[in-house]
């Protein structure tokens, strides 16, 4: 009897972990949120990327955002809070939807992958430090987009 109870509670726990909570948008930005806005003196205006960061920083589940854009491409990577990662698939779907609604004019690539996050961070830093021309930025971003689409 007690075995059954234990089994039931385990199942309940697992199922509870699977419930789909929608991401919560708060008015205030998350506390201690690392938000790097890219200066405007880069060859491609990073206004959309900065806006996307600002927008995503309001989500409770989001820990970190990196984003870079070209003329019509916007690549975003987010880091999700550890305990929210149980709903990673669902969050990714919902957040992508929200972002696409707000930036309807651009092609959005949205990712929660750590690799994309790292690469975008590197690109952001390079944008700040060096004088990159438009072609270089396009090339780097193209590579990141390709990576994000890779499947096993």
């Amino acid at each position, binding site marked *: 009897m007690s075995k059954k109870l234990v089994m039931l509670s385990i199942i309940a726990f697992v199922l509870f972990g699977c419930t789909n909570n929608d991401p919560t948008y708060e008015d205030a930005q998350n506390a201690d949120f690392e938000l790097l806005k890219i200066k405007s003196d880069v060859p491609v205006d990073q206004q959309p990327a900065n806006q996307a960061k600002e927008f995503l920083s309001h989500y409770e589940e989001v820990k970190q955002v990196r984003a870079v854009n070209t003329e019509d491409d916007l690549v975003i990577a987010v880091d999700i809070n550890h305990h929210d990662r149980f709903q990673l698939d669902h969050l990714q779907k919902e957040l992508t939807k929200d972002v696409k609604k707000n930036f309807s004019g651009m092609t959005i690539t949205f990712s929660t*992958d*750590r*690799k*994309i996050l*790292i690469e975008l961070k590197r690109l952001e830093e390079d944008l700040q430090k060096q004088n990159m021309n438009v072609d270089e930025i396009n090339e780097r971003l193209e590579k990141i987009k390709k*990576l*994000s689409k*890779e*499947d*096993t």
Partner: protein
Amino acid sequence: MSEERKLPPEAKQYQKLHAKREIKRPVVKNCIKAFLVGGTICTLGQAITTFYIYFFDFTEKTAGNPTVATLIIITMFLTGFGLYDPLGQFAGAGTAIPVTGFANAVISSAIEHRTEGFIQGVGSNMLKLAGPVIVYGVFTAFLIAIVKTVVTNILGL
């Protein structure tokens, strides 16, 4: 249960006497050891994954394959040098459940049957222990896929 009833009384009596003398597997101790060793192996796997993500062009999705390959190669050396079986005796399920246990089952069989040649020995016996895992793994995946198709497409849940 029905098997037990068929036993003659003498056998039943002896089995009772024997049960008193039998040394039981130390289940709790084994579980703790398995947890620690298995956890160490998984941490090592995570470290390898992170390494591939940071230093090579692998994403979280694609880094799995090279990680598994690396763990298998490590297991291959451990098995070949005779270090994996004492580890397995200590850790039990901790070394059997991760991919390293599967690799060890294949590699140890391959080494063992080398004496019968490459075709009759290695070739036909390599999957002697791992074969059931593949057969029933594929079969279970097939069943689950059917259930999922029925639930999502037909019942529309």
